[in-house]
């Protein structure tokens, strides 16, 4: 597993930050971001895919009232792909029984989807080798988050109560020493770097670190390892043509 990985540094892999507004569609945006990134990695072709198609055509019919990433993938499989964002644009609201999937040409599709192991080292390895994946976390600490690496305990952020899906785009280590009072009071201890995950949120670029945030890597912070899911795009190959930039 490479020591660092940041798919944002690769050209045309990660799309710009989305804003779900008052529509609880994080699940659809995370799934579309995952498929778009994998399509770019495997086909060297940038596509902008329709989130609205997932909201209108979701098999559970809940649209902006919530859903899960696996529902999004099943919808893509059932509809044999996704239309483009240009043809089927995001509205920020949805009405049941208004699926227009058959009206527009499919511009990308998936073969399958899979859930990864809950081992954070294995997740890092898969991320570096194959591309960004989706994760579902407890979003409790994100309402007041501005920047930096969140390191929580199960007491401050319950890892079993996961309620927000985002795209995992990389990982690294913060070189500064830990900033807790305890660490500072023990000045003889060597300064340790903080391992972190880099996650893409869908709450606009005004939030967090230009729309991104970082979680501590190594203690299942906020339940990040509970549902690591990804689509499978393209044929099963040993190694995709692009590797993750350090």
């Amino acid at each position: 597993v490479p020591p660092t990985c940041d798919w944002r540094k690769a050209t045309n892999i990660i799309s710009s930050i989305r804003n779900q507004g008052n529509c609880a569609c994080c699940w659809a945006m995370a799934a579309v971001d995952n498929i778009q990134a994998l399509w770019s990695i495997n086909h060297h072709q940038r596509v902008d895919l329709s989130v609205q198609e997932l909201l209108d055509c979701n098999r559970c019919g809940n649209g902006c009232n919530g859903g899960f990433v696996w529902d999004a993938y099943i919808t893509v499989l059932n509809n044999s792909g996704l239309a483009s964002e240009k043809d089927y644009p995001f509205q920020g609201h949805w009405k049941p029984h208004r699926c227009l999937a058959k009206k527009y040409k499919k511009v990308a599709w998936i073969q399958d989807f899979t859930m990864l192991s809950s081992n954070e080292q294995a997740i890092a390895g898969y991320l570096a080798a194959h591309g960004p994946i989706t994760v579902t976390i407890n979003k409790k600490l994100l309402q007041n988050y501005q920047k930096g690496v969140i390191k929580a305990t199960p007491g401050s952020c319950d890892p079993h109560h996961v309620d927000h899906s985002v795209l995992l785009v990389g990982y690294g280590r913060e070189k500064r020493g830990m900033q807790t009072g305890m660490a500072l009071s023990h000045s003889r201890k060597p300064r340790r770097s903080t391992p972190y995950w880099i996650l893409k949120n869908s709450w606009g670029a005004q939030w967090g670190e230009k729309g991104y945030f970082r979680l501590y890597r190594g203690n299942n912070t906020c339940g990040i390892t509970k549902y690591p899911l990804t689509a499978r795009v393209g044929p099963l190959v040993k190694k995709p043509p692009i590797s993750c930039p350090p």
Partner: protein
Amino acid sequence: DSLLPKDAVPQPLELKEVFKLFQIQFNRSYSNPAEYTRRLSIFAHNLAQAQWLQQEDLGTAEFGETPFSDLTEEEFGQLYGHQRAPERIPNMAKKIESEKWGQS
């Protein structure tokens, strides 16, 4: 009418100033004075919550004013999560255990 010392008096005004800047930054307006007062109260609560999180966090995160600082925890949960609690993952069959060892 207050028993507070003189230097404590400006605090509410400072909060209102901070809230005014928040409203400008994130383009927020409220329909009536009652709603404004409610949102101001929620904003103050969230700033206090952010301060507490700052003390509790074990990493390097900074907490404070965000675009969601005028929302209650419940409103934030309803608007920005996926709401429904996952019951099970699709295609994950339940494991049927036999009462006798050796039988699948």
